[in-house]
């Protein structure tokens, strides 16, 4: 029993789900749901369909080359069961998974950092250009003038004294 990968969107296909199509050249295509199947039948390229993992990886939106990703690989030669090996593998899997997630998250975070700077700059320019929509140019000026005058008067009074 294996969890396969959907040919179109690379989602996991659990046993009892999805469909498989076998072509005349004996290549098998598994699909997780009819959405992927129908897209395939319409001859769409998964590398150009934006919501698929294939697109995301080929467009550099997700981590592609990494050591932590090399652990999960389809092996064609089966290994004889060995309790120790299996239990160690399960533990290793958990650790590898943790590391993998961390690295993937960091990759995306770095990608989105640039956006944050652009956001900042946009805010600043927005404020500079359109501050008049929320604050009149001479909003506090009357008060300021008054204060100044009061201050001046006070000084004069002081000077007089």
């Amino acid at each position, binding site marked *: *029993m*294996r*969890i396969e990968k959907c040919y179109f969107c690379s989602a*996991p296909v659990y046993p009892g789900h999805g469909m498989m199509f076998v072509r005349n050249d004996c290549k098998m295509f598994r699909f997780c749901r009819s959405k992927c199947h129908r897209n395939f039948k319409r001859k769409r390229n998964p590398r150009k369909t934006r919501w698929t993992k294939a697109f995301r990886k080929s467009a550099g939106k997700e981590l592609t080359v990494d*050591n*932590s990703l090399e*652990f*999960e*690989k*389809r*092996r064609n030669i*089966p*290994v*004889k*069961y*060995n*309790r120790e*090996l*299996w239990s*160690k*593998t*399960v533990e*290793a*899997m*958990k*650790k*590898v*998974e943790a*590391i993998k997630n*961390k690295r993937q998250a*960091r990759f995306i975070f770095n990608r989105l950092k640039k956006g944050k700077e652009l956001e*900042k700059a*946009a*805010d*600043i320019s*927005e*404020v500079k250009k*359109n*501050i008049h*929509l*929320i*604050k*009149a140019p*001479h*909003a*506090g000026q*009357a*008060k300021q003038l008054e204060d100044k005058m009061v201050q001046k008067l006070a000084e004069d009074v002081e000077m007089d004294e």
Partner: protein
Amino acid sequence: MALYNFKKIMVVPTAKDFIDLTLSKTQRKTPTVIHKHYQIHRIRHFYMRKVKFTQQNYHDRLSQILTDFPKLDDIHPFYADLMNVLYDKDHYKLALGQINIAKNLIDNVAKDYVRLMKYGDSLYRCKQLKRAALGRMCTILKRQKQSLEYLEQVRQHLSRLPTIDPNTRTLLLCGYPNVGKSSFINKVTRADVEVQPYAFTTKSLFVGHMDYKYLRWQVVDTPGILDHPLEERNTIEMQAITALAHLRAAVLYVMDVSEQCGHTLAQQLELFNNIRPLFANKPLIVMANKCDVKKISELSEENQKIFADISAEGVTVIETSSLTEEGVMQVKTEACDRLLAHRVDAKMKSKKVHDVLNRLHLAVPAKRDQKERPPFIPEGALLRRKAMETDAPKRKLERDLEVEMGDDYTLDLQKYWDLMNPEEKQDKIPEIWEGHNIADYIDPDIMKRLEDLEQEEELREKAGEYDSEEESEDEEMKEIRQLASQIREKRKLKILASKEKDTQGPRMPRTAKKVDRVTLEKEMSDLGLDMTDKNDSHYAQRSRSLVRKRKREVSAPPLSRTRSQSASRPPRDQSGVRDAKMLKKVKTMMKSSQKDMNRQGRKGESDRHVFDLKPKHLLAGKRKSGTTSRR
């Protein structure tokens, strides 16, 4: 050689059926519609076609019968003789000859009438000719009724004849009736011939097949033969004689030692000597059957002498019993071997030896020195052979286990696994974890790789990759962000408000709208300006138009002169009118000038609108009494 399978002969219909069949076929398959006004060549063609069609059908069918039935000269003499015995050669040939003649007659009839049809000048004549032609053809066939019936019976019987191959290895059983020939064939082959106590149970030839030395053998069972001269023999016996005469087989003459068949040994011996000529050139064995009842040694002196005589002549005598199967095998092997030897001899002497020589003679290379070279048999084969011979205790099968345990049995193939630690055989192996296949991660050096990975991770962490950057945002930046979001919100609201405008309707200039003091002050205070204490500002002065009308005070003089001037002007209908008389005339003039217009229902001179272009009361209806000069 022609086929020995006579099952493929077409059914021969009776005369009546044949006629009906052909005539209905003619009716169905040729055009049926003809009228007398058609052109004469068309009519002629129509009827000629029918005649020819009928003739064609008869011809075809009869030819088929003639070709299907075997020609007695063409088939193996055994079958020819058999058919002669069963069906009488002369009668058979005659029947077929009659059919042939009928065929030719029909052809001639058709030819004649077609020729005559060319001179038919009307539909009636042609039709009569056709009727005559068809009638004659059918009569010819009616006369063949007897032949057709006979041929049908022959066909049915022929198809049920046993297929005996005259050229292959055959064993032939013969003897008096009831001696045990059929029982023997039942024992030796898979044939199931009827065995009954009365004589002539077997009425025709029967074939059984058996295997010996990897070859197929035919065993032919014959009906019993009685001791008469050849001319007096009946059909059933003649079949046996035919078989004896024509088949090159090993003959097994069956004698009944116990004389239960109803004939003494002397009579059986008589018969044997009479048929002797038929056994020339054939391996012969005498079977002393029913020896379970009486053995030869128990017989009387004379009878024993009979047997002694026979064996003295060089003929093998074997005691058998079909009941106890004693001696049956012996007979079989003996007969088969002798027949094989006989056949091999015959082949050697014939011209075709070289074709079969590879089957008769095994060529062995000549020895070049005295060294012994025995065939090599590997040890394993010897062991296997030994193991096969001894009754080794078989290992316990799963089936045995299942039977033992009954309902509790579960098929557990894991116990046959070949693992490094056998105690792990019963483990439940995990396959999937959190959406990943464990089989994809299995690697002998996974731990080493994991260590490398962890080290790398540590290095990265040390290098500071995973430090979450503090939001180094000072107060200023926060404020800017807040302002920016407010600005964006405000803009959106403004856009929404402008979208609600009615751009299609009439556009009023901005100044036509009145500006509310309250909204103005609210807006400006939202923008941050101080709007308190603004009663003296220009926009707060109430305009004159908003002044509510107060009760007029008598002492207050009018502030403006607007109304007074208009009060002094005379109304228009009185200006320029000198006196009341003129006023009256003026009024009548006004009214009369309007009269016409009012009557016509027009607003004025320029009103040429017609309310009803086609008034119904003028255009509908008949021209009844009244004027018809206009509509």
